[in-house]
Protein backbone atom coordinates (compact mmCIF):
# COMPACT_ATOMS: atom_id res chain seq x y z
CA UNK A 1 0.00 0.00 0.00
CA UNK A 2 3.08 2.27 0.06
CA UNK A 3 2.43 2.85 -3.62
CA UNK A 4 -0.60 5.06 -3.03
CA UNK A 5 1.63 7.64 -1.32
CA UNK A 6 4.19 7.75 -4.12
CA UNK A 7 4.29 10.46 -6.75
CA UNK A 8 5.87 8.89 -9.84
CA UNK A 9 2.74 7.19 -11.20
CA UNK A 10 0.68 10.34 -10.71
CA UNK A 11 3.20 12.32 -12.76
CA UNK A 12 3.17 9.52 -15.35
CA UNK A 13 -0.63 9.73 -15.63
CA UNK A 14 -0.53 13.51 -16.13
CA UNK A 15 2.27 13.34 -18.71
CA UNK A 16 0.49 10.65 -20.74
CA UNK A 17 -2.76 12.61 -20.68
CA UNK A 18 -0.93 15.71 -21.95
CA UNK A 19 0.41 13.54 -24.76
CA UNK A 20 -3.10 12.31 -25.66
CA UNK A 21 -4.49 15.86 -25.57
CA UNK A 22 -1.96 17.04 -28.15
CA UNK A 23 -1.57 13.88 -30.24
CA UNK A 24 -5.31 13.21 -30.07
CA UNK A 25 -6.01 16.43 -31.93
CA UNK A 26 -3.06 16.53 -34.30
CA UNK A 27 -2.44 12.97 -35.47
CA UNK A 28 -4.34 11.75 -38.48
CA UNK A 29 -7.56 9.77 -38.13
CA UNK A 30 -9.60 7.74 -40.62
CA UNK A 31 -11.93 9.88 -42.74
CA UNK A 32 -15.38 8.44 -42.11
CA UNK A 33 -18.81 9.76 -43.05
CA UNK A 34 -21.13 10.90 -40.21
CA UNK A 35 -18.31 10.74 -37.68
CA UNK A 36 -15.91 13.22 -39.31
CA UNK A 37 -13.64 14.72 -36.64
CA UNK A 38 -15.84 13.41 -33.81
CA UNK A 39 -13.96 10.12 -34.18
CA UNK A 40 -11.43 11.85 -31.92
CA UNK A 41 -14.00 11.57 -29.12
CA UNK A 42 -12.82 7.97 -28.90
CA UNK A 43 -9.69 9.24 -27.13
CA UNK A 44 -11.71 10.84 -24.36
CA UNK A 45 -15.07 9.03 -24.17
CA UNK A 46 -13.86 5.42 -24.11
CA UNK A 47 -11.09 6.01 -21.49
CA UNK A 48 -13.79 7.22 -19.06
CA UNK A 49 -15.33 3.73 -19.18
CA UNK A 50 -11.96 2.01 -18.93
CA UNK A 51 -11.14 4.13 -15.89
CA UNK A 52 -14.52 3.22 -14.41
CA UNK A 53 -13.88 -0.49 -14.96
CA UNK A 54 -10.47 -0.18 -13.32
CA UNK A 55 -11.74 1.36 -10.09
CA UNK A 56 -14.83 -0.88 -9.95
CA UNK A 57 -12.52 -3.88 -10.28
CA UNK A 58 -10.38 -2.58 -7.41
CA UNK A 59 -13.59 -2.06 -5.42
CA UNK A 60 -14.64 -5.70 -5.88
CA UNK A 61 -11.17 -7.02 -5.05
CA UNK A 62 -11.23 -5.12 -1.76
CA UNK A 63 -14.80 -6.20 -1.03
CA UNK A 64 -13.63 -9.82 -1.34
CA UNK A 65 -10.56 -9.07 0.78
CA UNK A 66 -12.80 -7.49 3.39
CA UNK A 67 -14.95 -10.59 3.63
CA UNK A 68 -11.82 -12.71 3.98
CA UNK A 69 -10.09 -10.64 6.66
CA UNK A 70 -12.69 -8.33 8.21
CA UNK A 71 -10.22 -5.43 8.03
CA UNK A 72 -12.20 -2.18 8.14
CA UNK A 73 -9.69 -0.39 5.86
CA UNK A 74 -10.53 -2.73 2.99
CA UNK A 75 -14.17 -1.72 3.24
CA UNK A 76 -13.16 1.95 3.05
CA UNK A 77 -11.11 1.27 -0.10
CA UNK A 78 -14.08 -0.56 -1.65
CA UNK A 79 -16.47 2.36 -1.04
CA UNK A 80 -14.17 5.07 -2.28
CA UNK A 81 -13.19 3.09 -5.37
CA UNK A 82 -16.91 2.61 -6.10
CA UNK A 83 -17.55 6.33 -5.54
CA UNK A 84 -14.82 7.26 -8.01
CA UNK A 85 -16.14 4.68 -10.46
CA UNK A 86 -19.60 6.26 -10.33
CA UNK A 87 -18.04 9.66 -11.07
CA UNK A 88 -16.37 8.30 -14.21
CA UNK A 89 -19.59 6.45 -15.06
CA UNK A 90 -21.38 9.81 -15.20
CA UNK A 91 -18.61 11.32 -17.35
CA UNK A 92 -18.85 8.36 -19.72
CA UNK A 93 -22.63 8.67 -19.98
CA UNK A 94 -22.60 12.43 -20.58
CA UNK A 95 -19.79 12.37 -23.16
CA UNK A 96 -21.57 9.48 -24.86
CA UNK A 97 -24.85 11.43 -24.96
CA UNK A 98 -23.19 14.48 -26.50
CA UNK A 99 -21.50 12.33 -29.11
CA UNK A 100 -24.75 10.44 -29.77
CA UNK A 101 -26.55 13.72 -30.51
CA UNK A 102 -24.25 14.34 -33.47
CA UNK A 103 -23.68 10.76 -34.60
CA UNK A 104 -27.09 9.16 -34.00
CA UNK A 105 -29.32 12.27 -33.96
CA UNK A 106 -30.57 12.17 -30.37
CA UNK A 107 -28.97 12.53 -26.97
CA UNK A 108 -30.88 9.47 -25.86
CA UNK A 109 -32.28 7.13 -28.49
CA UNK A 110 -33.09 4.24 -26.14
CA UNK A 111 -30.28 2.31 -27.68
CA UNK A 112 -29.56 -1.04 -25.93
CA UNK A 113 -26.10 0.19 -24.95
CA UNK A 114 -27.48 3.39 -23.46
CA UNK A 115 -30.35 1.73 -21.65
CA UNK A 116 -28.29 -1.02 -20.10
CA UNK A 117 -25.61 1.50 -19.09
CA UNK A 118 -28.35 3.48 -17.33
CA UNK A 119 -29.55 0.34 -15.51
CA UNK A 120 -25.98 -0.47 -14.47
CA UNK A 121 -25.71 3.09 -13.15
CA UNK A 122 -28.77 2.57 -10.96
CA UNK A 123 -27.23 -0.70 -9.79
CA UNK A 124 -24.27 1.19 -8.35
CA UNK A 125 -26.44 3.98 -6.96
CA UNK A 126 -28.27 1.24 -5.07
CA UNK A 127 -24.92 0.21 -3.58
CA UNK A 128 -24.51 3.65 -2.04
CA UNK A 129 -28.13 3.77 -0.88
CA UNK A 130 -27.73 0.33 0.72
CA UNK A 131 -24.61 1.48 2.57
CA UNK A 132 -26.25 4.60 3.91
CA UNK A 133 -29.26 2.68 5.15
CA UNK A 134 -27.27 0.54 7.60
CA UNK A 135 -25.98 2.19 10.77
CA UNK A 136 -24.04 -0.63 12.30
CA UNK A 137 -20.50 -0.52 10.88
CA UNK A 138 -19.60 -4.19 10.50
CA UNK A 139 -23.02 -5.13 9.24
CA UNK A 140 -22.87 -2.31 6.69
CA UNK A 141 -19.42 -3.36 5.50
CA UNK A 142 -20.37 -7.01 5.18
CA UNK A 143 -23.73 -6.56 3.43
CA UNK A 144 -22.42 -3.94 1.01
CA UNK A 145 -19.37 -6.07 0.21
CA UNK A 146 -21.64 -8.95 -0.75
CA UNK A 147 -23.86 -6.63 -2.79
CA UNK A 148 -20.79 -5.24 -4.55
CA UNK A 149 -19.60 -8.71 -5.50
CA UNK A 150 -22.97 -9.42 -7.12
CA UNK A 151 -23.32 -6.00 -8.72
CA UNK A 152 -19.98 -6.09 -10.52
CA UNK A 153 -20.60 -9.08 -12.84
CA UNK A 154 -24.14 -7.84 -13.52
CA UNK A 155 -22.68 -4.45 -14.52
CA UNK A 156 -20.17 -6.13 -16.84
CA UNK A 157 -22.94 -8.20 -18.46
CA UNK A 158 -25.19 -5.16 -18.85
CA UNK A 159 -22.55 -2.96 -20.45
CA UNK A 160 -20.29 -5.40 -22.29
CA UNK A 161 -22.37 -8.48 -23.12
CA UNK A 162 -26.10 -7.77 -23.54
CA UNK A 163 -25.80 -4.81 -25.98
CA UNK A 164 -23.51 -6.91 -28.17
CA UNK A 165 -26.15 -9.59 -28.57
CA UNK A 166 -28.73 -7.28 -30.14
CA UNK A 167 -28.69 -4.53 -32.73
CA UNK A 168 -27.24 -1.36 -31.38
CA UNK A 169 -26.08 1.92 -32.83
CA UNK A 170 -22.97 1.76 -30.69
CA UNK A 171 -19.82 0.41 -32.38
CA UNK A 172 -18.94 -3.17 -31.53
CA UNK A 173 -22.57 -4.21 -31.20
CA UNK A 174 -24.98 -6.16 -33.39
CA UNK A 175 -24.15 -5.74 -37.05
CA UNK A 176 -22.08 -2.62 -36.44
CA UNK A 177 -18.38 -2.59 -37.11
CA UNK A 178 -16.31 -2.26 -33.98
CA UNK A 179 -13.70 0.43 -33.74
CA UNK A 180 -11.16 -2.32 -33.26
CA UNK A 181 -11.73 -3.92 -36.65
CA UNK A 182 -12.76 -1.64 -39.46
CA UNK A 183 -12.87 1.94 -38.29
CA UNK A 184 -9.70 2.21 -36.29
CA UNK A 185 -6.13 2.08 -37.49
CA UNK A 186 -2.73 2.12 -35.82
CA UNK A 187 -2.59 5.92 -35.82
CA UNK A 188 -5.47 5.86 -33.37
CA UNK A 189 -4.10 3.03 -31.26
CA UNK A 190 -0.96 4.96 -30.33
CA UNK A 191 -3.20 7.55 -28.67
CA UNK A 192 -6.08 5.39 -27.44
CA UNK A 193 -4.16 2.74 -25.48
CA UNK A 194 -1.96 5.22 -23.58
CA UNK A 195 -5.16 7.14 -22.81
CA UNK A 196 -6.67 3.98 -21.28
CA UNK A 197 -3.66 3.59 -18.98
CA UNK A 198 -3.43 7.26 -18.06
CA UNK A 199 -7.12 7.77 -17.25
CA UNK A 200 -7.16 4.53 -15.25
CA UNK A 201 -4.23 5.83 -13.19
CA UNK A 202 -6.06 9.14 -12.84
CA UNK A 203 -9.13 7.36 -11.46
CA UNK A 204 -6.98 5.32 -9.08
CA UNK A 205 -5.31 8.54 -7.91
CA UNK A 206 -8.64 10.21 -7.14
CA UNK A 207 -9.82 7.04 -5.39
CA UNK A 208 -6.68 6.95 -3.21
CA UNK A 209 -7.14 10.58 -2.20
CA UNK A 210 -10.75 9.86 -1.23
CA UNK A 211 -9.64 6.75 0.68
CA UNK A 212 -6.95 8.65 2.60
CA UNK A 213 -9.46 11.31 3.64
CA UNK A 214 -11.93 8.64 4.72
CA UNK A 215 -9.21 6.81 6.65
CA UNK A 216 -8.47 9.98 8.65
CA UNK A 217 -12.18 10.44 9.34
CA UNK A 218 -12.47 6.81 10.37
CA UNK A 219 -9.54 7.00 12.79
CA UNK A 220 -10.90 10.22 14.27
CA UNK A 221 -14.26 8.59 14.92
CA UNK A 222 -12.62 5.50 16.40
CA UNK A 223 -10.75 7.54 19.03
CA UNK A 224 -13.80 9.46 20.21
Amino acid sequence: MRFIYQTWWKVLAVVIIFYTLVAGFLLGVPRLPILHETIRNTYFHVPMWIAMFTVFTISVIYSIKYLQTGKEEYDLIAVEAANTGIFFFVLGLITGMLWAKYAWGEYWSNDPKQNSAAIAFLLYCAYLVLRNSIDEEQKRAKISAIYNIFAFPVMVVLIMVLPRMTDSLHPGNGGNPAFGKLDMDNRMRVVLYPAFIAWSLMAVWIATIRYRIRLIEYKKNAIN
Partner: protein
Amino acid sequence: MAVKAQNAQPVEMADKMRSEGKIYVVIGTIVIVFTGLAIYLFSIDRRLKKIEKEK
Protein backbone atom coordinates in the same frame (compact mmCIF):
# COMPACT_ATOMS: atom_id res chain seq x y z
CA MET B 1 1.77 49.99 -56.62
CA ALA B 2 4.00 49.61 -53.60
CA VAL B 3 1.19 48.07 -51.57
CA LYS B 4 0.38 45.57 -54.31
CA ALA B 5 3.97 44.46 -54.50
CA GLN B 6 3.98 43.85 -50.76
CA ASN B 7 0.84 41.70 -50.91
CA ALA B 8 2.26 39.53 -53.63
CA GLN B 9 5.02 38.26 -51.41
CA PRO B 10 4.05 36.01 -48.48
CA VAL B 11 4.98 37.74 -45.24
CA GLU B 12 6.50 35.59 -42.51
CA MET B 13 4.39 35.77 -39.36
CA ALA B 14 3.84 33.60 -36.31
CA ASP B 15 0.83 31.98 -37.89
CA LYS B 16 1.12 28.49 -36.44
CA MET B 17 -1.67 29.12 -33.93
CA ARG B 18 -3.98 30.30 -36.73
CA SER B 19 -3.34 27.47 -39.17
CA GLU B 20 -5.50 24.38 -39.70
CA GLY B 21 -8.74 26.03 -38.63
CA LYS B 22 -7.11 27.32 -35.41
CA ILE B 23 -7.09 23.84 -33.89
CA TYR B 24 -3.95 24.76 -31.94
CA VAL B 25 -5.97 27.27 -29.94
CA VAL B 26 -8.31 24.46 -28.87
CA ILE B 27 -5.36 22.31 -27.88
CA GLY B 28 -3.96 25.24 -25.90
CA THR B 29 -7.25 25.64 -24.07
CA ILE B 30 -7.65 22.03 -23.04
CA VAL B 31 -3.99 21.80 -22.07
CA ILE B 32 -4.48 24.83 -19.78
CA VAL B 33 -7.62 23.26 -18.30
CA PHE B 34 -5.88 19.98 -17.66
CA THR B 35 -2.76 21.70 -16.27
CA GLY B 36 -5.00 23.45 -13.76
CA LEU B 37 -6.71 20.21 -12.79
CA ALA B 38 -3.40 18.38 -12.40
CA ILE B 39 -1.89 21.13 -10.22
CA TYR B 40 -5.09 21.15 -8.15
CA LEU B 41 -4.94 17.39 -7.61
CA PHE B 42 -1.23 17.52 -6.68
CA SER B 43 -1.89 20.30 -4.15
CA ILE B 44 -4.73 18.30 -2.56
CA ASP B 45 -2.35 15.34 -2.38
CA ARG B 46 0.31 17.52 -0.67
CA ARG B 47 -2.14 18.91 1.88
CA LEU B 48 -3.32 15.40 2.70
CA LYS B 49 0.27 14.27 3.21
CA LYS B 50 0.78 17.08 5.73
CA ILE B 51 -2.34 16.10 7.69
CA GLU B 52 -1.31 12.45 7.64
CA LYS B 53 2.11 13.33 9.06
CA GLU B 54 0.54 15.25 11.95
CA LYS B 55 -1.10 12.07 13.21
